[in-house]
């Protein structure tokens, strides 16, 4: 056995590592906070000034298998080092995007009525898209886990979005209750990406979209 590293040296080195970590954490704090309230340019098809980057990026991935840098959800689900945010070929993902027309409906509804860049904007999209009252379920899946949720519709409006199952890498509190509130507020599945939890955001948007497809009149 070699002579063990002295405790004092271990302590000094550990403090140095902790200092470097803290510097990085603090330095990246503004960007993380900024990204949590804005839409990062994840996809060439994204409109940075409109809500729903997660959904937009997801739509892009469904139609074109673009690179990961452009669209995280388009990254390979089957391995290599680019699988983090890749969507699997699950039926939920496919069905969630099988109808681009439905997506266009949502898009136009939001584009017409939602002030850009503000999650607190008052949506009028509920008047454009009618939903049947009831409780509808949806699932979003990618290699990082899955999210199952229910969308409760009353009087044609989304009134609650309880998450019923959470198996994502990220802690649930990263997006809950923020994203369910956004869905209720904006009455759409097109939501803001939560920085540091893009995979969870995509899955959430995917699950809400799937549920809303079932709820469409």
């Amino acid at each position: 056995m070699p002579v063990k590293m002295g405790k004092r040296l271990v302590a000094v080195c550990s403090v140095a590592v902790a200092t470097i970590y803290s510097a990085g954490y603090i330095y990246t704090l503004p960007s993380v906070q900024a990204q949590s309230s804005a839409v990062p340019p994840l996809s060439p098809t994204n409109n940075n000034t409109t809500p729903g980057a997660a959904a937009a990026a997801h739509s892009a991935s469904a139609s074109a298998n673009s690179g990961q840098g452009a669209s995280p959800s388009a990254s390979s689900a089957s391995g290599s080092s680019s699988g983090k945010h890749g969507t699997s070929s699950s039926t939920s993902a496919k069905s969630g995007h099988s109808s681009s027309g439905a997506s266009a409906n949502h898009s136009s509804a939001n584009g017409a009525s939602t002030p850009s860049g503000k999650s607190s904007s008052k949506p009028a999209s509920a008047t454009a898209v009618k939903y049947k009252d009831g409780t509808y379920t949806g699932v979003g899946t990618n290699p990082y886990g899955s999210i199952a949720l229910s969308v409760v519709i009353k009087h044609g409006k989304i009134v609650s979005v309880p998450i019923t199952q959470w198996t994502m890498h990220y802690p649930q509190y990263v997006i809950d209750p923020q994203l369910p509130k956004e869905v209720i507020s904006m009455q759409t599945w097109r939501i803001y990406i939560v920085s540091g939890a893009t995979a969870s955001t995509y899955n959430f948007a995917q699950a809400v979209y799937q549920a809303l497809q079932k709820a469409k009149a």
Partner: protein
Amino acid sequence: MNNPQATRPPQSPLERFLKTPKGAVMAVLVGLTLVGALRPQDHLGLLNAAVAVATGLVIDGGVALLQRRRKLFSDGGVITALIVADVLSHMTPLYVVMATTAVALLSKHTLKVGRKPIFNPAAFGLLFALVVFGTGQSWWGSLALLPIWLTLLLLAAGLLITSRVNKFPQVIAFLGTYFALLLAMAFLHLGLPSDTPGDALRAPFVNSALYLAFFMLTDPPTSPAPYRQQILFGVIAASVGTMIFATSGGLAYLLIGLLVGNAWRLSLRWMTNVPARSASSLLGSATTVIDAKNDISDENLA
């Protein structure tokens, strides 16, 4: 009490086992697995862990039978299985858990120089599973999905193990390089929009890096013992991993960094140990390569 040995307090076999590095690692991993499974969604992770451990015992036990060893119980197999289960998402199908564990342990028995595996078995199996099965990795055993303060538990457990296997230079070099490069990336605005340095410095990614540094990087058979080599090993693993994170993101960057470090160590051994190089082969050689006087373990930790 006439016997001198009887003057010492009697130790049960379990106590003796827990005092060994492998025993300590196994106890810590079992503890982390149980704590990680406290999260209701991860209860099923315990089933994965049980299946992985059973698979590990069967495979390593079978190999021991073939090699006519007296000891059939493989603590190394259990450790590898626990790491595999801790990393794979609990939603992973059981057959994938079994296959991942099997590949990990088979790599230990086949890709080796002398008695020592070249690659960290768990990292090898997990990378294989990612490529072949596209498995999700939640690293739930790193307590990444639990309240952030539980990371302190991970740190305490990790420091304990690092001390037991005498790998502080390696762990400090790895984490120091990793965090420094992420800081540099942030300064220079490098990285992918979807995988930023800010993400890597926060849960759950930072938990993954800590888990890998404390419990995978420190595997004695697949990492060097001399301090200088430990430092280089940590720097290489962190640099390669961060480079992959910056350019590709994804799940595998930490695993690839570790495996590249393992490969570097193999090349180092080949360059510095000419007799062993000529006498041993990569696949199934019975030749024992004496790595270094300082090496700790006589068997695989993982």
